């Protein structure tokens, strides 16, 4: 077995040294009838060639995002990942290191996290950010719990523009803790009246922009109402590239900003691993979930970084911790941070413009297809079309014609009564040929 360095001789010698007559001596505390006499009924070890063939066959049964005109979004986006990003995150010293518990030999990870936190705070226009959450959806649930701790209230209001999965994650954990959740109905045209839902019992309001339908939302009035009522505004985004072009939630009065960072530096990966971005006000930092890297000095006075404020965390605070999170998305945060370092604000803004331009061109094209209408007044790189018939059906038919045309909203929210909506995303990866292929295929189906 190529992964196991011990030779049979080694094993015999070591058992002798230990004073055991056989390996099962070491399993002496296991009830005898529970100790398996032999390996379970599964295939025996296999060579790299064989493993590659097996997984390669599975891979070939999928249509990857590069091999078709691709317009699927709703919380995960196909962007270009620079080759240097993927190279760097595979450096042994990043890939095969643990959480930086020994800071003297983990300055690489710690400085990177400090830089990551700064990048996230800058992008969101917030004061502080943590060292990552699992993803945007779990981060949103954590934000709600944090708001409850801060406000000592238990009632959450979810906008109808929030990604339905995100809403479900919040509702699941809230149900467990018997907290109240008001979920506004799906709101494709950003016309809900959320202000009326906010009162002095409200802990927090969760609003997404760009919302799941792609609409851009003005958070300012909601922030004002929240502030007046002592509630907190949680701003969510699923497409971090939008922050290059769209006003930052921190500049509109959000108290907690949480979002999905996958678009920068991280592949689609069929849904994970991704990286949750989480930022808030300085004054709330001690109620924040997740790890934080902070600056300090070493014994010779040199700048260095450590994990800090860990009295918030489970390994110190146990049942009183701000969260149970331990392992987070370190390597995805690294990928994010490298990609963002390459971009800088100049690159991010350009990237955002290309995304927006491609989406606008696509929307214009699709709007001209008979029986198709674009719902959005505003959008960034994602918008919603209403088509004739079942969106789910049309998306399947498009796939058969070689176009991955977006997400039928009914897939995210089956009972919501919007079976004719498709959410369509477009990024810098799309070409004019992709767009015309989409329009033509859709036309053929309408």
């Amino acid at each position, binding site marked *: 077995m190529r992964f196991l360095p011990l030779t049979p001789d080694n094993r015999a010698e070591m058992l002798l040294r230990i004073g055991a007559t056989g*390996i099962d001596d070491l399993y002496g505390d296991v009830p005898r009838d529970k100790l398996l006499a032999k390996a379970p009924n599964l295939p025996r070890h296999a060579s790299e060639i064989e493993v590659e063939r097996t997984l390669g066959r599975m891979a070939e049964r999928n249509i990857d995002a590069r091999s078709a005109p691709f317009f699927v979004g709703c919380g995960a986006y196909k962007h270009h990942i620079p080759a240097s990003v993927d190279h760097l995150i595979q450096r042994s010293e990043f890939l095969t290191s643990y959480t930086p518990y020994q800071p003297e030999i983990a300055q690489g990870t710690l400085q990177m996290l400090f830089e990551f936190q700064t990048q996230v705070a800058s992008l969101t226009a917030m004061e502080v950010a943590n060292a990552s959450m699992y993803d*945007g959806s779990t981060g949103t649930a954590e934000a709600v719990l944090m708001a409850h701790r801060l406000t000592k209230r238990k009632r959450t209001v979810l906008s109808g523009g929030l990604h339905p999965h995100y809403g479900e994650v919040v509702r699941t954990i809230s149900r467990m803790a018997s907290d109240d959740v008001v979920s506004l109905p799906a709101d494709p045209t950003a016309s809900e009246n959320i202000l009326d839902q906010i009162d002095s019992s409200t802990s927090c309001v969760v609003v997404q922009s760009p919302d799941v339908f792609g609409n851009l939302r003005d958070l300012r009035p909601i922030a004002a109402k929240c502030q007046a009522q002592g509630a907190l505004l949680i701003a969510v985004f699923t497409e971090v590239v939008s922050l290059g*072009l769209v006003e930052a939630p921190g500049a509109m009065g959000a108290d907690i900003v949480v979002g999905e960072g996958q678009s920068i530096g991280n592949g689609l990966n069929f849904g994970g691993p991704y990286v949750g971005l989480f930022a808030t006000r300085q004054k709330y930092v001690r109620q924040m979930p997740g790890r934080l890297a902070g600056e300090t000095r070493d014994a010779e006075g040199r700048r260095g970084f450590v994990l800090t404020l860990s009295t918030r965390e489970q390994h110190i605070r146990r049942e009183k911790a701000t969260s149970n999170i*331990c392992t987070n998305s370190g390597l995805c945060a690294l990928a994010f941070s490298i990609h963002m370092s390459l971009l*800088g604000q100049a690159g991010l803004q350009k990237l955002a*413009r290309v995304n927006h331009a491609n989406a606008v061109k696509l929307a214009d094209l699709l709007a001209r297809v008979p029986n198709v209408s674009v719902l959005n007044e505003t959008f960034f790189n994602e918008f919603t079309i209403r088509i004739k018939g079942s969106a789910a059906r049309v998306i399947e038919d498009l796939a058969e014609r070689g176009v991955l045309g977006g997400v039928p909203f009914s897939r995210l929210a089956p009972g919501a009564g919007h079976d004719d909506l498709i959410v369509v995303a477009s990024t810098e990866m799309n070409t004019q040929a992709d767009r015309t292929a989409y329009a033509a295929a859709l036309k053929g189906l309408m």
Partner: protein
Amino acid sequence: MLNTQGRPTHAGDIGVTGRNTFTRNRALQMEEALIFETGHLETTGLDIEEPDAFTPRLGAHARKSDIGLPGLSEPETLRHYVRLSQKNYAIDAGLYPLGSCTMKHNPRINEKLARLPGLGDIHPLQPQSTVQGALELIETLAHWLMTLTGMPAVAMSPKAGAHGEACGMMAIKAAIEARGEGATRKIVLVPDSAHGTNPATAALIGYQVRAIPARADGTVSAQAVRDALGPDVAAIMLTNPNTCGLFEKEIVEIAAAVHEAGAYFYCDGANFNAIVGKVRPGDLGVDAMHINLHKTFSTPHGGGGPGAGPVVLSAALAPFAPVPFIRKEGDALRLVEDAEGTQSFGRMTAFHGQMGMFVRALSYALSHGSDGLRQASEDAVLNANYIRACLADLMSQPFGDRFCMHEALFDDRWLKDTGITTLDFAKAMIDEGYHPMTMYFPLVVHGAMLIEPTESESKASLDLFIMTMRDLAQSARNGEAERFSGAPYLAPRRRLDETLAARQPILRWQPPAAVAEAAE
């Protein structure tokens, strides 16, 4: 000053050592500034063509606030991160005996396969007809996990161990509520030796924690559990093998008692690496157990994640598993994404879990095979016992001189009159080229040193480690305090002041102007 686990809370007075250089570099060990100190606002390390003219659709939402993030050219970026990486310890560079963390070899074939476009470049919301291979992969891994644990179901979506704990506990809560006992069963039993995530998870799900004391031999007695059980108890969260590196020998009795009391048995599976292919948790009476794929199944830790924490479930809990899950429909696999019309307790995350980790874990499992997995566990246990046996005369074992599972646990009694703490000892290991073991965990052991070598170490590697530990231990016993109190001397940084960091937290870079302003 020491805290109750004997961990110093302040760094000592440490002199400056060594040869100075102008750059403060030390040959191959480079100093490196922050990207914000070297980048330029107008620079970007990516060439992106401006789009042709078009009419924006941003309405009144265009960004007006500053971003303030400088960019780096590509060569500067490479150098920045390569230099940072060179300040890290890694499995690939040396023994990483962090107890409870299972820092085993991360095969590179896993990385390669996770990057196949057909696995890495597929979207979670593509039509299911276009991702049948991905679903097949998840099903295959699920089959391995269920077979190895002897459990009938597995929830694949949890994102890490702690998330898996939440998953298991939510399933338990849902099952209890389905029985109509939600209002009465409010307590979860957790031994003192448990990992912090266990009580934190219980609290997250809305439970109160009732502690169970450990026995003098480091395990939990069935009697103690029985004493703590009652109609108010929803579950027990027990780690097995436990955090002291021991197999819970009364686990079958405990499980029976828990079930008899109408509660469920959540097993923390972080230490599964000791028993894969040797013992099936399902045979022990476990109702739910998470498996850290980033420990037992070799997916890389990545400096703190990502992980993956699938949770195997007993028949009693299976119906309450979260969405999404996969259902066979003829030849096709269907991902059930909506909890409506099922008993599922709901959704834990936006998509389907950590596919990137599933690929790696399956690659690991197929490579090892059933025989290799069993051998790996045996080797992990053998390696830990070898270290334990070879250090037992110099260092003290909290629960006597007995066989352990895949971790060897020492306490700090043997350091008693040396003035040297577990922390000091750990930092001196750094100078010798070793990552320290886990320190001060489990909390029930004073000055704990939890050593987990994993199966990935050769005998030669273990022997050098043992000799080094013995040399250090002799040194400590001889009162050579300087080797410890000032350590590390040779790392990229000397000991870092954690108190300073926490007192006035600096959590992000600020432009010098802003810092000056804040200081006023």
